[in-house]
Each structure stands twice: as C-alpha cells, then as structure tokens.
C-alpha cells in the first residue's frame, strides 16, 4: 500500500482533476423501471472508483453504461474528451475501456492462452506474436500453470482471473471490474487485490470497481459513489462515503432492500 502514498490526495467523485471519464446526467429506464436516475460523475486518470449500493441500486447498469452494453435513455458519457454515448462496446474497447463480467464470460471452447489471444489479435497482433505475448498476461494474473488448459476447466475464481488477463491484453486506460472477487475463495482475495494495485500503480490504469464487501472496497478504491434505487446518495473519498449516515444505515447496517 506504500505506493498509494505517492498518489495525490483523494478527491470527491465529481471534483477529480483531468477527468478521463465523465457521466453527465445519465438516466437509464427499462420500461417503467428507472435503473439510473440523473447520475453524474467525473473520474480522474489513475484514480479508482467504487460503485457501491445494495442489490438493485443500479451499480451494474451504470457499469454497463460506461462499458457500452447498455445505452442511456438520456445523458452523455465522455471518455478522454470524446463523446462515446452511442459508441458500441467494441469501439470503446479500442479507445481504452476494458471490463470483466459479474457472471464470467469465458470463451469456453478455447484454452486460457487462446482466450487472451482473442484480445491480442483483435487489436492487430499476428497469431505468432499473440501466442507468445499471451503468456505474459496469463502469468501476470497467476494462471501460468493453466496456460494451455481449456478454459472450461477453470474454477470461478480462475475464470475471474482469466477475464482480468483478457481485459489487460486490450491495454486499457480504464479497467472496470465487476465483482472481481465474487465466487473466489477467501485465501485468493489478497492476491487479487495486490494484482489490482499493481495495475494502477505500475501501469497507470484507472479503475472502476463494483464490489459488495467493504473491506475489499477500502483496499481497492480511493473514491466511491453510493447509489440507492438508481440515484446518487453520496460521492467522494471512500472513507467519507463509508461514514455517511445513509450509507451506514442502508449498506453497512441492516439494508432495507
């Protein structure tokens, strides 16, 4: 955690300087359901933001709005100064947005190495080059021993790591992790947290994290946005958000939904 001392002091979400990502009044409706209601935020480069809230708060919807798999009903999404509100997910990936999935999406008939090669070849690498370079990403997430195993043989935790390797192979500027510790056995979690810290500190990647466990969030995020029923309750430094009375009541105490 010492590397974090070199980081600028935490700023509230919405006040970050040099934003890499800005959401402006984003509203998402699914029929009569308002999943996100007038959500705005800005996120500075190399910062890490936690999206918090109880089940049904709209965290994953907001995550998908940034990743491009859900299009907002109204509002704008700006990444690195470019309006990407209507850009498809593939275009966002090319611009530098990568993601993992809450329910893992491995290419199950491919090996671990081939999963990563998909990302590398899609970015223009030759098969030979991708075959060699995939090992680096697989080793980085600690799956080196599984390199040429079918990805269908991986456990849930290993699949989460595979998705991380695959996302990193796109050389992202913004990495979005959706419950990266979900389904992972507890002894493996510190290793994952350490890997994520290295991503930010060594590679300068900006992070958005959706997680349920407060301990993980404190270890992973500088800033947080707390959502409840689609609306922003509070945003700012993670400790400030965690100490907010509404957050303590809804999230850390007995959640009301």
């Amino acid at each position, binding site marked *: 955690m010492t590397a974090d001392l070199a980081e600028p002091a935490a700023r509230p979400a919405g006040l970050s300087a040099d934003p890499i990502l800005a959401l402006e009044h984003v509203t998402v409706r699914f029929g009569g359901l308002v*999943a996100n209601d007038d959500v705005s935020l800005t996120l500075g480069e190399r910062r890490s933001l936690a999206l918090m809230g109880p*089940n*049904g*708060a*709209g*965290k*994953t*919807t907001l995550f998908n709005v940034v*990743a*491009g*798999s859900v299009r907002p009903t109204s509002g704008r999404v700006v990444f690195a100064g470019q309006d990407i509100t209507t850009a*498809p*997910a*593939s275009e966002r*990936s*090319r611009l530098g947005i*990568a*993601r993992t*999935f*809450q*329910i*893992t*999406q*491995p*290419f*199950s*008939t*491919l*090996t671990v190495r*081939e999963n990563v*090669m*998909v*990302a590398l*070849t*899609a*970015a223009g690498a030759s*098969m030979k080059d991708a075959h060699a370079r995939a090992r680096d990403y697989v080793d980085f997430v600690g799956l080196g021993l599984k390199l040429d195993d*079918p990805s*269908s*043989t*991986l*456990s*849930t*935790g*290993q699949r989460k790591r595979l*998705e991380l390797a*695959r*996302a990193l*192979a*796109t050389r992202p500027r913004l990495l979005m992790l959706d*419950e990266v510790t*979900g*389904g*992972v*056995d507890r002894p493996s979690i510190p290793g994952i947290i350490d890997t994520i810290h290295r991503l930010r500190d060594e590679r300068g990647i900006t992070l958005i994290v959706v997680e349920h466990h407060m301990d993980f969030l404190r270890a992973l995020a500088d800033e947080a946005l707390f959502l409840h029923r689609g609306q922003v309750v509070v945003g700012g430094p993670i400790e400030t958000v965690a100490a907010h009375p509404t957050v303590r009541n809804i999230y850390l105490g007995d959640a009301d939904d």
Partner: protein
Amino acid sequence: MRSVLGSRPWLTLALIALVLAAMPFVIDDNYLLHILILFLIFAVFATGWNLTLGILGQKTLGHHAFFAIGAYTTALLSGTVGLSPWLTLWLGVLAAALAGGLIGIPILRIRSMPHVAIVTLAFAEIVKLLLANWKDVTRGELGLWGIPPFPAIEIGGTTIRFGAGQIAGSFALALLAFVAVHALVLWLLRGRFGLTMVAIRDSQLAAESLSIDLTRSKLAAFALSAAIVGLSGGLYAHYLQILTPTSTAGPEMLVTLLAMIILGGVGTFFGPIFGALVLTALTEYLREYGDLRMLIYGATVTLFVILLPRGVAGLLTRRGRPAAAGDEPATAPET
C-alpha cells in the same frame, strides 16, 4: 481451438485427401465413385454451412438457398447465356456470397436464435418459390436440364472430361474442390478468423468488449459460408446437369444437410465431412428399402445423436475436465 479442429488437423486432412485420391484406383465401380463424388460435393456444402451454424453459432437454417443460388446462377449463365462454366461457376459463388451478405444484414439485428432460424428458413422458401415460379427462365419444377458440363481440359496430352458420365474427371474435380475448400477453411480457422468466430459463439458480450466488431465479423462469415455453399451448388449443377427447385432448395436438402452436420459434429472442422460420408452413403444404400427408407434413415440419425451427442468428430477431440472444486459458485446477477 482443439475442440473445433482436433489434434494435428493438417495431418488428418492430408490423410483424408490421400485416402480419397486413392479411391478411383481401388474402386472399380462407377456407381460407388458417383456416390463418392456426391459425398465430396455435399461435404463442401456441409463445411460451408457449418461455418455459420456451428463455428459462429448462428442458427441459420436457409443455406440450401445459397446452394440453389450457386447452382442456378452458373447453370443459367452457362446453359442459357452461353458463358463458359469455368467462369460462371465463380459468378454463382459471387451471387451466393452477395445473397449471404444480404441475409446477414437483418440477421445481425436479431439476437434470438429461434428468430434467426425462422428468418433464414423463410429466405430459403422464398428462393425456392422464385425458382419454381419463374418458369420462363428456370422451367420451374419441370427441371432445368441440359446444363453443360465443365469443358474438357488437356493436361500432358491427356484429355480430362467432366459431367454426368465422366466419373474420373468429375471425381478429380470434386476432390480438388474438396481439398481446396477444406484447406482454406482450416487455414482461416487456425488464424485470427477462427479465434474471432469461436469467441463470438461462446460470448458475444465478451467478444465485443475485446474490440471485436460483431457486424463486420458476422457479415464476413455469412458471405464466406454462402460462397462455399454456392460453390458446392455449382459443382452439383455441372456434374448432374439437371436441377429442380425442390431438389436444391427443398426441405429434403435442408434436413439431409442439417443431419450431416449434426451427426458429424456441429462446430467441429471434421464433423461435416464424416456426416456427409455417412449420410450420402446411407441415403443411397437405403434406396432399395422403398417406404422403409426414411424410417431407417431417421432411426439411424437418432441413434447416432444418442450415442454420439458431440458427433463423430467428437471422438477426435478431447473433452474438457469438469471445473475444479473448492471455489464458491458465481453470485446471482443484479441490475
């Protein structure tokens, strides 16, 4: 890609090609060789269809339309217009590829597989009805006969003739097309194209999140798949020299070719080849059983599906081991 290609796919393909090339020298029966020619043509058809159906995972059920488009285009342009079949074959391929791209555009907007199946099936029915009713040009169900064979060629002083009665030349040409198409498809599947297709099949969401342009990739796969099927249609037209709308774009063609792919192994490279061999032979063998033919045919296909759910090609590929124990299951989805 091992579950798609098996191990040592180039060696396997070379062995299959060698065994097939030896057939005219060991089989002294023109009828059996005729069956093998049909097998070679249908194997190309099945492999082309399998690109979208199995490798890309799109449940397209209208590829017999591309077979008919390839067959009728080359038959009409050579027979009626008078162009060389060596040229019109490729015009048929082009027409099928364009039709593939055309049907690909609405398919891209449909995420529900049953709807993809219905739209493609309807497309094939439209093509069949057009061919059946455009009688001035196609002669409808009376059949387009007298289609010219490929003109003879001379190699090293030997004249090679093609067409219905010319078994040796027709076999050589069908084998050449079989080897060329399968070598091309294998080369593509072992490269970026193959990885992209399988990635889209396994998870469109993840594929798109890794910069894969779904529209471009699917359209390319549709066009290539239709082109290969169109090529098989052209070879069929100039070999049998007679076509009818029902025999090319009818439901029996759909069922037979689907059965070949399923029995051989959907989504595997070698599956359609094995399926085409088994079912072409079975169809011909069962002709003498009259009314019992379709019953035995159906029972055989059912038996294969029960005993070999991953198809004949499944025997060549390793099964993945079950997921390792110890980790908790994934959490439930939320908004």
